[in-house]
């Protein structure tokens, strides 16, 4: 049984998302330019220039939530493209091929004038480039560069000493690409890029993520935990798509205050908390209830998922040169979560910070295999259980997995 009701910020963020998208559709219908951006692309440029944009991954998750992924993947397949490859991006590409775009979720995704994605992996650039061949669509690719040697403690270096963490080669490259992007957007949209507005946007993002950092720290040190991942994920994620707005900054602040009020009032996700769990891997969107299934019997609460933690540690960048600071936010963004030694050391740091008793690791065939993360956690003394989610019927997966995790909680974590 859950002892608390959902957060007000989560409900408010969901409502705002619909209003925002309706407004975006109105603006685009009225002739404003529209950009479709990948999640790891510096949105701050578009925010600064007030160019309406949506995030590819957000759209794909909305499509998935509406059970429409199959429809868009079928459109991709009909053109002869694989329907099994990088589905997050290809679902979004499928909306470009839709003969009836208005029939899509929330009135459908408008046709973008510009698509921006980074050339990560082998397929992302290909997918967006194919999109760029649709009439009226320009694809602007960014490189995805890698570094030979990196310092371990990125989460300490990033806020101010990002130059050391990321390295000058990658920063020079992305800074130059972004300067060119600004010129390209100025030329094609006729909009101006205001430097003081840019500094304001950068400051708002840092403020938003500082609030997330306070929230993360508060949850980490509060026992029993004031809330579990089911409540924290929507409150942190939806405002992330609106980084650089006052609304998003204020939501992050209200989210913090809501959590603080819970702590002050002594509310807990599970007052009988006996074990604090960490979740590694993508979210189980089709079964968020899974995360609360171990509370009643075992007092085991999922207090950690990457979503709030990466908001807290992954975005904050200070510095006098806002374009280079922005490049520093994204030049190595996914390395923070997925590339050892950064990922493995960070998960251990977070597990210690949150007083984690056990780690549930969702293993998938994602090439960004997380073996080294699980290994580092085990080496640091955190018990890890691996569960496999691929090609399994959701229902049986759930029953069997709940039993397995239950046995593991009894025999390892709580023993």
């Amino acid at each position, binding site marked *: 049984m859950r002892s608390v009701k959902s957060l007000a910020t989560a409900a408010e963020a969901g409502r705002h998302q619909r209003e925002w998208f309706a407004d975006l559709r109105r603006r685009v219908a009225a002739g404003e330019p529209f950009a479709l951006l990948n999640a790891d692309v510096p949105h701050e440029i578009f925010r600064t220039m007030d160019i309406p944009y949506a995030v590819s991954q957000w759209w794909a998750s909305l499509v998935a939530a509406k059970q429409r992924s199959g429809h868009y993947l079928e459109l991709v397949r009909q053109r002869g493209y*694989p329907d099994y490859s990088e589905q997050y991006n290809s679902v979004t590409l499928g909306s470009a091929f839709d003969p009836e775009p208005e029939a899509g979720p929330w009135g459908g995704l408008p046709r973008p004038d510009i698509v921006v994605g980074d050339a990560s992996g082998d397929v992302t650039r290909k997918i967006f*480039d194919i999109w760029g061949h649709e009439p009226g669509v320009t694809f602007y690719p960014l490189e995805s560069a890698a570094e030979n040697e990196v310092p371990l403690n990125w989460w300490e270096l990033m806020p101010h000493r990002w130059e050391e963490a990321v390295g000058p080669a990658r920063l020079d490259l992305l800074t130059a690409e972004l300067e060119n992007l600004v010129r390209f957007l100025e030329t094609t949209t006729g909009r101006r890029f205001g430097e003081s507005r840019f500094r304001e946007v950068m400051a708002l993002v840092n403020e938003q993520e500082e609030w997330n950092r306070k929230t993360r720290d508060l949850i980490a040190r509060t026992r029993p935990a004031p809330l579990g991942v089911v409540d924290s994920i929507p409150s942190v994620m939806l405002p992330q798509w609106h980084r650089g707005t006052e609304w998003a900054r204020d939501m992050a602040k209200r989210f913090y205050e809501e959590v603080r009020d819970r702590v002050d009032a002594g509310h807990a996700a599970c007052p009988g908390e006996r074990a604090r769990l960490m979740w590694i891997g993508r979210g189980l969107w089709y079964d968020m209830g899974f995360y609360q299934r171990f509370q009643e019997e075992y007092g085991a609460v999922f207090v950690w998922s990457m979503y709030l933690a990466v908001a807290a540690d992954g975005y904050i960048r200070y510095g006098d040169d806002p374009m280079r600071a922005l490049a520093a936010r994204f030049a190595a963004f996914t390395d923070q979560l997925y590339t050892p030694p950064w990922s493995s050391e960070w998960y251990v740091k977070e597990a210690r910070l949150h007083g984690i008793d056990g780690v549930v690791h969702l293993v998938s065939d994602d090439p960004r295999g997380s073996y080294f993360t699980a290994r580092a956690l085990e*080496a640091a003394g955190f018990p890890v259980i691996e569960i496999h989610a691929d090609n399994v019927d959701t229902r049986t997966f759930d029953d069997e997995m709940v039993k397995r995790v239950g046995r593991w909680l009894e025999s390892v974590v709580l023993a």
Partner: protein
Amino acid sequence: MATALAALEEAYARRGAPPAASKDRTDGRIDGRAGDRTPVVGYVGADVPVELLTAAGVRAFRLTGDPESGSALADRYLGGGVDPMARSVLARLLAGSFGDLDRVVVSHDCEASLRLFYALRELRRVEPATGLPEAYLVDILHLPHRTTAQYNRRRIGEFAARLEAWTGRPLDLAGAVAAHDERRRLLAAVAELRRAVPARLTGRQFLAVVNAALPVDQHIALLERLLAEAGQLEEHAGRRVFLSGSDHDTPHVYEAVESEGYVIVGEDHSFGDLSLKEPIGAGGLDALAEHYHHSGPTAHRATASERAAHAATAVRHCRAELFVAYCRIGDEAPAWDFPAQRAALDIPAVLLERQEYGRADLTALRKEHPCAV
């Protein structure tokens, strides 16, 4: 004396083992190791500037996998979604199959190579008992923009400096580039033998000729002999196939396709025709950086339209009659190229999707093209 072709095929059979030391130059050292031992460097991927390895006087060879041996441990480290070719290379490194390597140099030619680099770097840090050599990443990128060109030039410079630091002496870049250019020139001539009608080399033979595990100077000598002996080469009259898609680090798929009566007369992966580019010339590190920036177009780094344009030209050039796009499981990029390639071609095109490492599902080929056999 054996024919040059036989000698090259024999050297190809030794792929994945360090080539003998080159005779006509004094060799470098790494970490002041064994005085009389020339350092051995294994490299991964199409974008390692091998000219610099030659210039440093190390014995360098490209690391290849083996579809016939397991990769369970490497699967665990890399995850099952990574191209099995890279998993096999890691498995062989862990098993010590490549002998005593001083360094592994990895390029960012595809996601699997990058994942392999990260795994090597991390295993060395946290599991030193694996005994893996130090890995170095050369991050050459491929967007067709000046920003990328400048980045590549910096990375090439860093790698050159690192090699000098390893060996403790300056690089002989001009000599190395001249040797590799000469090899490229000879390989381009050999490629014409395969493109002849009827073909004078099979695809399997061409793969061996290009990837023979030999120091550059010995390779050049054998290629010269091969060209001199061209008149004695057999004719191969099978149906002419252009093989597109995934890299082939072993001859398995070539053998399977050619055993059905086809001859692979051209391909667009980095172990074959795509490795034969224009000469680099005398421009030093600048020219080297530009050469690698422009390499390809590989499935992993080019766009579908670039790949399609290349396929149309290459298919005409080698007078192929059938276009086969081969996509290995875990290597999804080539499947995205296929629709544009098919549209750009005026010969039949077949897609072999999600193929197992070292295997080709030929039933699809037989079904589509009964007359080919």
